[in-house]
């Protein structure tokens, strides 16, 4: 019996555009197991980003339920959602989304700061994680002083520094050249091998090939749930 980390039931997301309504997600039912490496694929406008935002607790569904580790997060208040984002979810974005005026150590410390961890401890923890992704010698560098691949590694370090239940990656290789892209994918594979749950949105079949399961989403609907 596999441990279900994420379960959605009849998940809907409808954007009210005034005159007409746009359905971004339509009755999405998914189950994601602990330790899975899942790729979500779909063309642009298919609703995969919306699904990602809801799974990442950045957005709330219009209908249905989202259960993360036995908690019904679709019913949580904004303040509680912030705590979930901080503790349970690690985000990796296509555009890295690092704070440009902070050095990478401070960037990685951010989630720890919002968990109320003392400055000394978070420095120690962030330094350790940055060493793990091979940036131990760049702690005081600003993101602008790093290459795209290095920046994405900083973003991954930030995502995993709080030991979240799931790691969500939204086209993490989309802005990278092939070499750095495979570096990053290898890091995700390593994270998966260490037992982390990784959910990655992509439209690149090669990237999806690293995953052990792929689900396709078209027009807000899940079309299949193959196990790769």
């Amino acid at each position: 019996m596999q441990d279900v980390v994420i379960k959605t039931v009849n998940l809907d997301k409808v954007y009210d555009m005034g005159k007409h309504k746009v359905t971004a997600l339509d009755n999405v039912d998914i189950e994601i197991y602990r330790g899975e490496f899942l790729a979500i694929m779909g063309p642009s406008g298919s609703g995969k980003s919306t699904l990602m935002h809801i799974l990442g607790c950045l957005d709330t569904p219009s209908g249905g339920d989202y259960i993360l580790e036995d908690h019904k997060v679709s019913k949580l208040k904004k303040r509680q959602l912030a705590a979930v984002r901080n503790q349970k979810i690690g985000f990796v974005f296509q555009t890295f989304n690092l704070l440009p005026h902070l050095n990478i150590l401070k960037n990685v410390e951010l989630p720890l700061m919002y968990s109320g961890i003392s400055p000394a401890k978070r420095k120690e923890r962030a330094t350790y994680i940055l060493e793990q992704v091979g940036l131990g010698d760049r702690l005081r560098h600003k993101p602008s002083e790093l290459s795209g691949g290095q920046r994405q590694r900083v973003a991954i370090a930030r995502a995993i520094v709080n030991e979240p239940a799931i790691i969500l990656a939204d086209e993490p290789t989309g802005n990278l050249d092939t070499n750095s892209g495979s570096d990053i994918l290898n890091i995700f594979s390593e994270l998966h091998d260490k037992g982390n749950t990784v959910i990655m949105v992509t439209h690149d079949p090669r990237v999806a090939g690293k995953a052990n399961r792929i689900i396709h989403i078209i027009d807000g609907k899940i079309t299949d749930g193959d196990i790769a």
Partner: protein
Amino acid sequence: MAISLKESVIVGLSDLWSRKVRTIVTVLGIALGTMSIIVVLSLIKGVNKTTEQWLQERGGATKLSVHRNGEYSKPHHERRHFDFKELRLIQSLIPEVEYFNPSSNQWTSHRAYYNGNEYWPQTVGVFPDFANIEEWSVSKGRFISDFDLDAYNDVIVIGSTAKTKLFGNEDPIGKYIYVMDRKFQVIGVMKRRYMKARSEIGDDNALEYLNSYCFVPLSTVLKKISNDERIQTFDVKVRYVSEVIPLKEKLEAILLNLRHGHPIFVVESTKEEIERSMQDTIIFKAIFFIISGISLLVGGIVITNIMLATIQERTREIGIRMATGARRFDIFIQFLVQTVLTTFFGGIFGVVLGISILDKVAAFINMEVVIDVNLIITATIISISVGLIFGIYPAVNASNLDPVKALRYE
């Protein structure tokens, strides 16, 4: 779970540091507002102090004066002065007063001479209480006593300027001078009165006129010198300010009775004079308050604007912070702290600026200024409040951003 205030201050300081020019401009705006508050409050304090000091020099808040009523023009046959018996009667009717002093006409100078020296002092007939009411004493010898009054003694107490003009360095006590063609023995010299004048026109001593006065027993003046010397004024002094108004009403009633209902005399209190002068400065104060208020308001609006612009520029950062777990309150505090820090620095800078230009402003408009610690604290608190008030709206705006939209913001 929440990020601590100390943490917010550190984040705020580094944010401000990363936008130096913008920070300096904002700090300057608030500094100018605070500076004007410091200057205005100091000026107002200075004016109040000068007025108070002046009135204190004139006998303090417990003094009442009775004068001829110059505005009363209806025809009547009442006497316009007091005779000695009347004064004694009035005195017996107001036993609650501490001091009582009628004065003879003060407005004429009489020639006085000693040993070839000549001077024209204003010589006034008084009661012994005069010195007590004016809170003025002799520097040498003694003042007029009840014995002098009862015995019609030909004694005189001279002012410090009169002493210098007539005697130079000579000791005047016991010497005889001629005033109003009569020989008086000098029994005392009054202390020199001094108060720095507000105006540079003329003498720098606002009280110099008092130093030319000479004082003789009122009884002597009435009996021996000038039968027609009229007493049109007397002063009384009570112990407590609370007694002033009741006594004023009582005196007015007595005086009306003595003159068959004609208001020949008016009673004026220093207390009311103080209140009147405070009233006079109220418009002056209000205008200055409005001006410095407006300058702070402008500073505040500038801050709101700059913070709104800053937040718009940093929308994506706010999204990133939210994605990594910042609560709305964390974002709110982050920006509010930045605004308050800005106005706090502005406030401190403004206080320093204000104090440093105070002397020059005071010299320029020729007024006294008073600066105290309370004022500095008030100005600093006001500037911090401006930060709080004008920082709330941008901070709320920032904290209400939608994480998804904020992350997508380009």
